[in-house]
């Protein structure tokens, strides 16, 4: 039962799954860090992006990976516009109103999706779906490796953007000190919209990386976001590093849990790790006090 090769494969598979989790969680944690709310529309918007990828393939024959720049940019635009026209305007500067609006948005999107896309499970057949790569004793599906690499690159690029660019610094400044940000002339409302846009852009990218190996239904976004939410809390609300480490930790836990306990019981591992870490460090792995 404790065949090391088996374990090795399980860990690698978990790492690969973790890459996408990190991407979804980074978007969620960014929005939390700046707007101080959990974006309840996260799952619905991920689902919407997955349908966009699906229909780009089905109707025009665009490969999911090739669609990444367009879908990511489109998702950014959608997030930005949603914030500007809906969330920012009707929240009247109160964080708790933003929460309610994103919740309502989620309900509307889910039902509209059901109406237009139907409840059927949709998948994309890519020619490379059955290609496996041998690493050590493990055989790993090529698309999962590509997706993993791509999400790492995207997260790293986002990290550099947040650390180096003026807008990235402004976003981090607004997250902790809005009044000070206004006093140096930062357009705080615009920073909110850009942050929301970037958070949703992460979902656009994640959708492209998921679709070669995953399926989409009107409810398939929520499963991911539930895991992503766990990761965000686990890593420390608003922490980038926390989202990254937490994402891989959860990916591996889920994979090993599935291996030893079976698909259904495997999810228990996530809850166990979650409870354990929060017991030891209530603010999460990389969380700060306030």
């Amino acid at each position: 039962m404790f065949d090391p090769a088996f374990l090795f494969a399980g860990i690698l598979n978990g790492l690969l799954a973790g890459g996408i989790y990190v991407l979804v969680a980074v978007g969620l944690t960014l929005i939390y860090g700046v707007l101080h709310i959990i974006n309840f529309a996260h799952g619905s918007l991920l689902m919407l992006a997955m349908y966009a990828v699906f229909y780009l393939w089905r109707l025009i024959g665009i490969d999911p990976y090739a669609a990444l720049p367009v879908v990511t940019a489109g998702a950014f635009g959608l997030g930005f516009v949603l914030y500007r026209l809906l969330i920012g305007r009707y929240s009247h500067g109160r964080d708790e109103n933003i929460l309610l609006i994103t919740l309502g948005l989620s309900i509307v999107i889910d039902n509209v999706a059901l109406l237009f896309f139907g409840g059927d499970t949709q998948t994309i057949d890519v020619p490379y779906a059955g290609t496996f790569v041998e690493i050590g004793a493990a055989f790993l599906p090529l698309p999962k490796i590509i997706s993993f690499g791509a999400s790492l690159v995207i997260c790293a690029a986002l990290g550099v953007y947040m650390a180096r660019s003026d807008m990235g610094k402004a976003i981090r400044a607004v997250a902790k000190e809005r009044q000070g940000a206004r006093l140096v002339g930062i357009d705080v409302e615009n920073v909110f919209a850009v942050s929301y846009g970037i958070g949703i852009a992460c979902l656009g990218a994640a959708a492209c990386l998921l679709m070669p190996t995953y399926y989409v239904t009107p409810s398939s976004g929520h499963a991911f976001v539930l895991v992503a939410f766990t990761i965000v809390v686990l890593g420390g609300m608003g922490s980038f590093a926390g989202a990254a480490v937490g994402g891989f930790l959860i990916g591996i836990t889920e994979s090993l849990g599935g291996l030893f306990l079976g698909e259904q019981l495997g999810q228990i591992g996530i809850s166990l790790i979650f409870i354990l870490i929060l017991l030891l460090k209530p603010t999460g792995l990389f969380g700060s006090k306030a």
Partner: protein
Amino acid sequence: MLEVAALRAGYGPIEVLRGVDLAVGPGEIVALLGSNGAGKSTLNNNVSGLYRPFGGSIRFEGEEITGASSMHIVKAGLVQVPEGRRVFPNLSVRDNLELGSYRRGKPHRAANLERVLEIFPRLRERLTQSAGTLSGGEQQMLAIGRGLMGEPRLLILDEPSLGLSPLLVEEMFGLIGRLNRQGLAILLVEQNVVQSLALAHRAYVLENGRIALSGSAADLARDPDLRRSYLGH
């Protein structure tokens, strides 16, 4: 340069400023005095565009800026170093300073950074340290440095000496004088009444939401009412 006329402002139903008139001319240091809660910071924050005044007018270099956004006001060259510093605790000292030129002064960012670090050598030693871990005095230097990065034409300083040791207070007043001699107009809010009156050209005293007293700093320093309420003799 700055002309505030009949300004009324406050928070929700509470009117804190009930018709304030005040002006700062080019090259001037103007001190704004008043007891705690008199509304000095309220005035600064309305001038800076953080709040929308109830009424009256604020003009900067001839332009009407009443109710304008803080972005617009910073862009015009009116910069405030706020009470309580409001530095970005999660950003490095360097990033804090660089964001000072987010809206204005960006083309000269490198040169201005060098100038600020010459004024505050302690900040140079701590460029990569996050601002939240600086001492109170160092944070105050950072807040002023960040303000200077925006190439202000008029600088509002709200209690810049708050929490500084006596030696640093002395230094702070020296610095304010030097900045002013380089041509910077300054609106100074201070609790150190004697020192600020010694430094300022003119002064105003805010009481009950109105300007109770104003005039040349030298005259005000001799005013018996002012001496009684602020100096106790």
